[in-house]
């Protein structure tokens, strides 16, 4: 994998010469353990979205792909025991990230571990994937049928074609923005990739608890993104060494 080797080398150079604390922040909000925290801060809290629908359209069967035909084409999926699973967990549907012009200045290192957007049980997993600009995302097919992942978003336009189970394609996202991802064969399938300029984002666990750590002191807007859109924004000011609690009860 020459490209990955090259990427590792580049990452190493950046690590050595810049040595920014942010480089120690693992991708997708998985915080490193050994970074001094005296000059940074954190935000944590709980997301309570119990009133939000659990009957999101993703759970509906798709009339345009098989409901009106029982044979061939897209209809085949309805006959081999595959159907959209239960609505995705909160950890796959929500993201918390910071908005700030200061944070956008960087530079930040891109993780060498590629996150993935799985196609499984006729759904994307997760349904919201936060990444940093420059990240390469894998799109493995876990279903025993074809998917055709594509996006026409301004931030990234791609079409991966059709490939079988356990095969994968990858895309590097080199511009910030919101990328809407779909399957051309199963039109109910959709996901959102948030391409951010900085690494200050995280996904909650299934109970809604989230942690953003090693944040430089400053004023930020904390954004809760849920499914396809931002659900709530809150302005905060974090100070050095402070651990701020911020709950979302949308």
């Amino acid at each position, binding site marked *: 994998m020459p490209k990955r080797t090259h990427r590792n080398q580049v990452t190493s150079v950046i690590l050595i010469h810049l040595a920014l604390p942010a480089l120690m922040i693992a991708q997708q909000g998985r915080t490193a353990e050994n970074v001094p925290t005296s000059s940074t801060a954190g935000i944590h809290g709980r997301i309570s979205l119990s009133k939000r629908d659990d009957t999101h359209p993703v759970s509906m*069967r798709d*009339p345009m792909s098989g409901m009106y*035909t029982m*044979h*061939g084409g897209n209809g085949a999926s309805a*006959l081999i025991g595959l159907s959209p699973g239960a609505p995705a967990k909160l950890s796959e549907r929500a993201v918390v990230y910071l908005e700030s012009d200061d944070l956008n200045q960087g530079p930040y290192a891109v993780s060498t571990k590629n996150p993935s957007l799985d196609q499984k049980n006729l759904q994307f997993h997760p349904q919201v994937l936060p990444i940093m600009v420059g990240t390469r995302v894998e799109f493995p097919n876990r279903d025993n*049928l074809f998917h055709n992942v594509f996006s026409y978003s301004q931030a990234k336009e791609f*079409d991966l074609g*059709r490939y079988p189970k356990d095969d994968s394609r990858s895309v590097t996202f080199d511009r910030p923005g919101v990328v809407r991802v779909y399957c051309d064969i199963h039109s109910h399938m959709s996901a959102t990739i948030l391409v951010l300029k900085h690494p200050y984002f995280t996904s909650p666990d299934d109970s809604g608890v989230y942690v953003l750590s090693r944040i430089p002191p400053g004023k930020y807007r904390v954004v809760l993104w849920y499914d396809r859109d931002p659900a709530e924004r809150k302005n905060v000011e974090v100070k050095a060494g402070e651990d701020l609690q911020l709950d979302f009860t949308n």
Partner: protein
Amino acid sequence: MGMNRTGIIALLCVATLPPTTSAQVLFTGQTAAQFYKSAVTLSPRAVNSGRPSFGWDTQLFVDGEVSDHVTALAYLRATNTDPITFDYVAIRLTDVTPLGLNFQAGKFDLPFGNLGDRRFPRKNLLYSLPSIYEYRMALPDHFSPGGDYQVIPEREILAGAGQGRGMRLLDLGMYHPGAMVFGSAGILEYAFAVTTGTVSTSSYTSDNYNSDLGKVARLAITPMTGLTIGSAYAWGAYMQAVYPIPGVENVNTYAERAAEVDLEFSRGYAVLYGEAVYSTFDVPITTGDQTLKVLGYYVEGKYTIIPRLYAALRVSGLTFGDVLAGGIQQPWDYNLVEWEGGIGYFIDRDVLLKAVRRETRTHGGSGPKDNLTVLQLVVSY
């Protein structure tokens, strides 16, 4: 505007589903607007006598999920040339037996071939349906009486060649009232349906015009992801019982028997579909019964060139067997070969712009060379 009364009732039933926590109703649709210009010919494929025209069509899909195993489905279609029609109104029971059998009753598309949702503009690679679904052959489904009886002289069949007045080999989407069981076992899919008419005689009206029922059996296999090979057989009386048949026979003894094989293959950026249909019609001809034969086929493919942009091509045709007329064996209609090619560009995920050119050749008739150029905009919602 004529509207299918049964369809309206069914739609109302769907719309008034009991408000249980599990019931969900989903409305989706497609609308297409197009500009078309065909050659100025007498070909039955000429659109609006070759005058440049605008047209439109729209489809509304109603999907009422009553429970995990019960779904009510409806599909309403309207075009600038046809009345509002409920093509599809069915109740579907899924996975209701230990064998995993599914059942549906109402009006639905016959399990014959693999046209699937390519019948709708959003998934149709081009503009037309393949000629085997659209082209009207010389043979009608009822005849003017020869004397007191419904028989047809050979010359009338031949006079209908290339006129576009008879049956289609596969009648548009082949929607019929009926009942169907279907299911799958591993890589096999199967279906059996009993309906009011045959694959060539569905038309917009759905009454049964004879005492026989159409029967359709289908088996398909998916040996590998991206490859499905299917086959179907359909049989039943096709004639309308508007006049008696001479002797002890009646229209129920004049059957259509149709066999087909189909294929779907896709990989990467390429998708390929194909279908071949061989059908026979028992015909009460003045000089004695004859069996008329026809072979129809199409192959079409699509290749995504870059994101948003694809190119598509279809070749389809009909090859007719002979009728014995005046002691001479001759084809009972003009053979037809049709090419259709075009490109599609997705302006947005749900907005598709297509530019299509169709060339039709018939081996005789008043319009042996015909063409059609279409610019079509399709939105789905």
